[in-house]
Structures are given as structure tokens and as C-alpha cells.
């Protein structure tokens, strides 16, 4: 009991100390974080890239190559999940029957599924204008497919179509990069005009890349879902 109270008092003292140190040193709302290299991004980002969403400008334009790597990481992860789960059924005799979803959930998924897909598409198409982007939009698209899985225990996707889509959009990303290499001498360099920030067709190659990333991420996450929720016949 005494130990506990001593610990609590110490924590309280520490908390107060940290609070006042920070409160004295860091005035509220002061942007001490913008020093050095980040200044350059903040003050020149919109002019350089034409994207009004600065995070997108950094992720897809300045650091476009990293993003290509990240998408590849996701692809490898999806493949790994598939490899691990491929032959992992439940032990025979212990299979339980899944409870079917009720008619309300099933019908709800019929109506809401296309709408969710459209939300996802909206998010990655507007990646350079509003928060969110390819990864977030892809996650929403995967959520729409998850709704299908939740509402119907026998639902499964057509793997061939999904793999084909994924390959095509992955190749689009790489092709855009190679075109930059050919036209300007740098991989993934922006070769399209920037346009005026705030319009849909602006920011050069960013929208193209984000659409590709969105579809790719959606397809990959759906593939993982399918592997995990596969029904044993």
C-alpha cells in the first residue's frame, strides 16, 4: 500500500515537472519543429509539386521511390500471408459450422457495397487535395470487400482477376517512373505540368500514382482478407 502511494506521488511529481518544463520551453502553438529541411518542404512544396496536400506531395513526389518500396512491402506481406495460410485448415472433426448472417446484414451489404467502393475511390482520386490518399482509399475499398465477407459466409473473390488488376496497376506505377527516367533523366520525376493547386487535374503525376496505389492496396488487402477468411469445404 505504502509502496503504491509512493509510486503514485512520484508519478504525479514527474508529471508536474514534465508539464511545467514543456509549458515554459515550448510556447503553445509555436512551430519550433519547422527548422532546416522541413522549411523547404513547407514553403516550396505547393509550388514545386502543385499538390495542396503536403503529405501527399512528400509521399508521392519527393519520396516517390520510397512509396514504390512500401507498396512492394505490402505485396510481399500479402504473398507471405497467402503462403502461410494456404494449407492451414482446422483439424478434421473440429470444424464448426459458421452462423449465417441475417437477411438484414446481407441486404445491407448489397446496397452499401458499391457506395463504400465509391468512397474509397473518392479518397484516392482526391489524394493530392484532401487528407488521405492511396493507402487510405485502398483500405476503405478492402473494408467494402470485408463487408461482403462478413455478410456471406460463402463469399469469395476471383483470385485471377484480382492478381491481374494488381499486376496491371503495379506496372503502371513502375511505367510512370520509367517514363520520368526517359523524359527527364530521373526515376519517377514529375514530367506532367503542375496545373493550379486545388483542382482535380493538378500536381502532375501524383493523381496517376495515387490511383494506382489505391487500387493496388485495395486488391492486396482484399487478398489477405480472402486468405484469412477462406471457408473450408
Amino acid at each position, binding site marked *: 500500500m505504502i509502496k503504491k502511494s509512493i509510486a503514485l506521488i512520484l508519478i504525479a511529481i514527474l508529471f508536474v515537472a514534465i508539464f511545467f518544463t514543456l509549458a515554459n520551453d515550448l510556447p503553445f502553438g509555436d512551430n519550433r519543429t519547422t527548422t532546416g529541411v522541413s522549411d523547404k518542404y513547407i514553403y516550396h512544396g505547393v509550388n514545386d509539386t502543385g499538390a495542396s496536400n503536403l503529405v501527399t506531395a512528400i509521399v508521392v513526389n519527393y519520396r516517390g521511390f520510397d512509396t514504390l518500396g512500401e507498396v512492394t512491402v505490402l505485396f510481399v506481406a500479402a504473398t507471405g500471408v497467402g503462403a502461410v495460410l494456404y494449407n492451414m485448415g482446422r483439424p478434421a472433426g473440429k470444424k464448426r459450422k459458421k*452462423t449465417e*448472417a*441475417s437477411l*438484414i*446484414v446481407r441486404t*445491407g451489404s448489397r*446496397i*452499401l457495397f458499391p*457506395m463504400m467502393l465509391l468512397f474509397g475511390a473518392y479518397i484516392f482520386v482526391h489524394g493530392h487535395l484532401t487528407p488521405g490518399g492511396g493507402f487510405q482509399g485502398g483500405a476503405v475499398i478492402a473494408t467494402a470487400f470485408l463487408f461482403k465477407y462478413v455478410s456471406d459466409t460463402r463469399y469469395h473473390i476471383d483470385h485471377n482477376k484480382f492478381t491481374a488488376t494488381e499486376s496491371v496497376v503495379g506496372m503502371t506505377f513502375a511505367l510512370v517512373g520509367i517514363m520520368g527516367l526517359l523524359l527527364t533523366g530521373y526515376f519517377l520525376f514529375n514530367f506532367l505540368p503542375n496545373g493550379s493547386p486545388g483542382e482535380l487535374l493538378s500536381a502532375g503525376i501524383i493523381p496517376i500514382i495515387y490511383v494506382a496505389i489505391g487500387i493496388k492496396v485495395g486488391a492486396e488487402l482484399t487478398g489477405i482478407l480472402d486468405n484469412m477468411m477462406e471457408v473450408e469445404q
Partner: protein
Amino acid sequence: MNFYTVLEYIGMFLVFVGALFLFLGALGIFRLPDVYNRLQAGTKATTLGAFGAIIGIGLMRPEWLPKAILIAVFILMTNPISSHALARASYRRGIKLWDRSVVDRYGPYLREKEEKEGKR
């Protein structure tokens, strides 16, 4: 007093009513005796509360109105579905009704159905 001021006052009223209903919903979740009754309060009151608040904001900023209506309608469509799924799952999980409930037609139905499937 022009048109927009009137809209703004209506919007403020709606936001206030919405906040009030959000509070009532939470109070219902806090006070009522079992899961199903709590769901009743939780679904209805929070849905109307959020609906009122969001539409109210939409009226105060007319250029946001379409998207606000979209969010509100989405909530109106999804909230009943999730609370229905929750109620059904609770019953099938074996969570009992309040002991002063007067009638339960669902339990006999489930048992009957199980028997039928067991025979098959």
C-alpha cells in the same frame, strides 16, 4: 435579419437538440437494465442526435450541406444494421433478457429451429 442568419439560428438549434439527444442516449445506455433496452436507447437517441448535429452544421455552412446530408444519411442507414446485428449476436451468445421482461418469443423459435436442423 437576412436568410443566412435565420439558417444559422436554425442550425444552432439543431446542434443543441442533437447534443441533448446524444446525452440522452448515453444516459439510457448508462441507466437501462439489460443489453437490449440499452440498444434501444443507444440506437435511436444517438442516431437522431448525430443526425441533428450534422444537419445543423450543414445549415450553418450551406456549402457543406450536401456532404453533411450524406454523412447523416449514411449514419441513418448503418446504425440500425449494426445494432440489429449486435442484438442478434447477443441473444445467440446466450445473454439473458432482463428478469422482469414479460414475453420472449425468440427463444422458443431458436430452439425449434435447432431441433429441426439437428434432425436433418
